[in-house]
């Protein structure tokens, strides 16, 4: 297939525009750093250093497979130095937001668990190779001094050797970057696997691993996988043994909220080596919507348990945070633990929030969430005593 696009080479004195045709059969997308952007086009620089100009136009008027539909363009909040992927026939996706601390390498849609409140339901597709290529391109394009980068899926450990390769690359090329990997930790059950991983990983890397209950059957039910609790429990100890940094992530649902204080104690007694524990509100999308009957619980219902759990861990000197909950629904004593955790592009505030004094420190809620909180209660007085 012949594709005619403008291909420009950056030279010291400016662009040399080579209008040429070249073969793009192998790839169905172009990835590059946004060099320039105006109302009619985006100019990308790909990893070979070529500048590629993509036009904003409707399908009928293009002479290239690569273009951006005007409708998509108007919704796209892309800025210079972002990394984007242009797909054939008009698709466009931001892969990396310049200056954001929320960038991640998405490695697969597959997962060996199937959590009842998964916001990104796993797909049984053979996509590892596809994402692996994309992620390697991203790694070639991003600045070497970025502070933090995430790795997420799906379940990253399903990548096998390819995860080691990505981690090795990060370790070599980004020695000062904090790598944050979201994994269910079940694979860590295999200590040889962990031992190899520990060799390939940068010292600043952290694994965020979910543990939903101190009771095996509850955890297994939430993640819909038998023996998951045991695998993760042993996995956590293997991880500690080989020096991996661990964060425990607890999504709060109707199924586990009652035992949060017991879970906190269980974590401290059995996994005191964790460097962080995060309690998280649900993003009601994906499976969480399908299963909302089963899992939905309002923050005011579990606030006492959450308070006890968080204050306990804090008093035991375990770094603890609360993610994804609007500040007005969180007990005041827990405000110091509340983190503005929702990515800016997913973040939303309600009309009431305009009145709120704390809107700057509140993370708001998920724009993507299908079930909204009905008791948002703007904070009108900053200094208010308990």
């Amino acid at each position, binding site marked *: 297939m012949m594709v005619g696009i403008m291909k420009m080479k950056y030279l010291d004195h400016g662009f040399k525009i080579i209008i040429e045709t070249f073969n793009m059969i192998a790839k169905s997308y172009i990835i590059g750093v946004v060099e320039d952007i105006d109302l009619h086009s985006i100019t990308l620089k790909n990893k070979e250093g070529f500048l590629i100009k993509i036009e904003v136009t409707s399908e009928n008027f293009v002479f290239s497979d690569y273009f951006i539909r005007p409708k998509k363009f108007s919704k796209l909040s892309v800025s210079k130095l972002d990394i984007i992927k242009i797909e054939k026939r008009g698709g466009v996706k931001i892969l990396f937001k310049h200056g954001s601390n929320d960038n991640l390498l998405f490695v697969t849609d597959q997962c060996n668990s199937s959590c009842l409140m998964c916001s990104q339901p796993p797909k049984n597709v053979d996509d590892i190779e596809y994402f692996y290529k994309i992620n390697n391109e991203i790694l070639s394009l991003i600045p070497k001094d970025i502070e933090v980068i995430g790795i997420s899926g799906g379940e990253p450990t399903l990548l096998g050797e390819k995860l080691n390769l990505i981690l090795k690359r990060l370790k070599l090329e980004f020695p000062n970057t904090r790598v944050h990997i979201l994994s269910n930790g079940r694979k860590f059950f295999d200590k040889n696997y962990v031992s190899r991983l520990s060799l390939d990983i940068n010292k600043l890397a952290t694994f965020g691993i979910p543990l939903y209950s101190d009771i095996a*059957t509850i955890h297994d039910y939430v993640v819909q996988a*038998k*023996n998951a609790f045991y695998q993760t429990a*042993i996995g956590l*100890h293997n991880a500690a043994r080989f020096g991996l940094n661990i964060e425990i992530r607890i999504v709060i649902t109707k199924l586990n909220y009652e*035992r949060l204080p017991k879970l906190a104690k269980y974590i401290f007694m059995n996994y*005191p080596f964790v460097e962080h524990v995060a309690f998280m509100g649900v993003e009601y999308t994906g499976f969480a919507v399908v299963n909302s009957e089963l899992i939905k619980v309002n923050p005011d219902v579990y606030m006492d348990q959450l308070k006890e759990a968080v204050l306990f861990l804090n008093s*035991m000197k375990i770094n603890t945070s609360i993610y994804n909950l609007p500040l007005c629904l969180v007990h005041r004593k827990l405000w110091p633990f509340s983190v503005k955790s929702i990515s800016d592009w997913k973040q939303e505030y309600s009309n009431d929030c305009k009145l709120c004094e704390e809107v700057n420190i509140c993370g708001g809620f998920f724009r993507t969430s299908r079930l909204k909180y009905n008791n948002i209660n703007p904070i009108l007085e900053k200094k208010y005593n308990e």
Partner: protein
Amino acid sequence: MKKGIPNKLKSSNGYYYLLPFRFERINQEKEILINEVGDYLICDIGTASKIVNRQIDVKSNFFGELISNYFISKEPIPALLNLLANRYRTKKSFIDNFTGLHIFVLTLRCNHLCHYCQVSRKNEKNELFDMQYENIDLSINLMFKTPSVAITMEFQGGEPLLVFNKIKYSIERVKKLNKIHNKKINYVICTNLTLVNDEILTYCLDNDILISTSLDGPKNIHDENRLRSNGPSYESVVNALNFAKKRIPLDRISALMTTTRMALNHPKEIIDSYIENGFNHIFLRAISPYGFAAKNKNKNEYETEKFVEFFKIALDYIIKLNNEGVYFVEDYTALILKKILTPFPIGFVDLQSPSGLINGVVVYNYDGYVYASDEARMLAESGDYSFRLGKISDNYNDLFYGEKAKEISENGSLEALPGCSECAFQVYCGADPIRNYVSQGDTVGYRPTSNHCFKNKSIISHIINLINDGRNNENEIFRSWI
């Protein structure tokens, strides 16, 4: 399975297996179950019996809780056995380091005449009771042989400041030798403070030496207990304390109190006097049955029961103070709490099993011999050399792993002592074969009449009741202590 629609996971039901755990009634309604690594569950009376009789509903959360906390298992070999093993290893990791506390008794001379004195002090001028330089050198060599990377070198007496030149000599020598050994060394001087001066305090400050002194409470109690050869000592201690506080930070000074019969009636006054003197913690220590304390039976023999009562009142008062915003810690409680509430071991030699003798502490005595503990050298002062490991000039292996050491360790594990082996509080308690020997005639001892056992059992059970009750913020306060 339809996408995203939950599956009920099959639960295996039926039989379950017991893992080692112990239990004890703590009040009229509750009993406590404690597992091999100190995790506890406080339940209704009768729960242990239900567990053992396989009457726990396998579908209940309590069943899951028993599994996660290593009380029972669905399989003959528990799925999380490795976790339990790691936990056990952690709890017992104090043994890995072997001897951490090295006590140097550089002199037996003292300028005080405390009636409960645990070492029979000698006249302040008689230099026969000082350690020879040669023995100091040899002791330091032995100390450096310990595998422990962190060691504490503690100078006791007598009154060690009577031979401050020898303290200085020892520390300077250790500092030089440590260039090869690279250990982390803490220094402590136990002193009645009456001899401190600018030179000594500057030296302590420069070398980050911790000063440990004795303060028995307010003037009337302190003076009753602690006489100087030339009269009462309270004024001089407090003056010295104030003098010292101006020169070194207060967290480098600590005070120890000994509870005598007179003190028993004044828990609050004693604590107040600690606060007045700027301390934020106290170690409520029962008098020990050694040395002068053993001889002065009339004056000091009070029933342990009374001490336990005193302890409870004092602890209540301390909790009240904490609730009023005064951060103040009772150290013995804090040590036990750390054993109950955390997965970590503690470095306190009296609450360990295997016992802290030799494993945790050893004494190089002015007389040229090595002893298994502070108490062992006090026994020697009354002519009983049962726990003398050998001469300072002997070789390390013969002293630390020799026949005597083996003999002592024989009865040094609660796990293997009658009474203790099935005691619920075993994980929170400690073995002390020398104390058994002194108070009951042999190193095994007999728990039903043991004061040491009574004291620990009562205190541990009291602390557990406070944790269970928690109505005065005990749980928050306790957590702030550990």
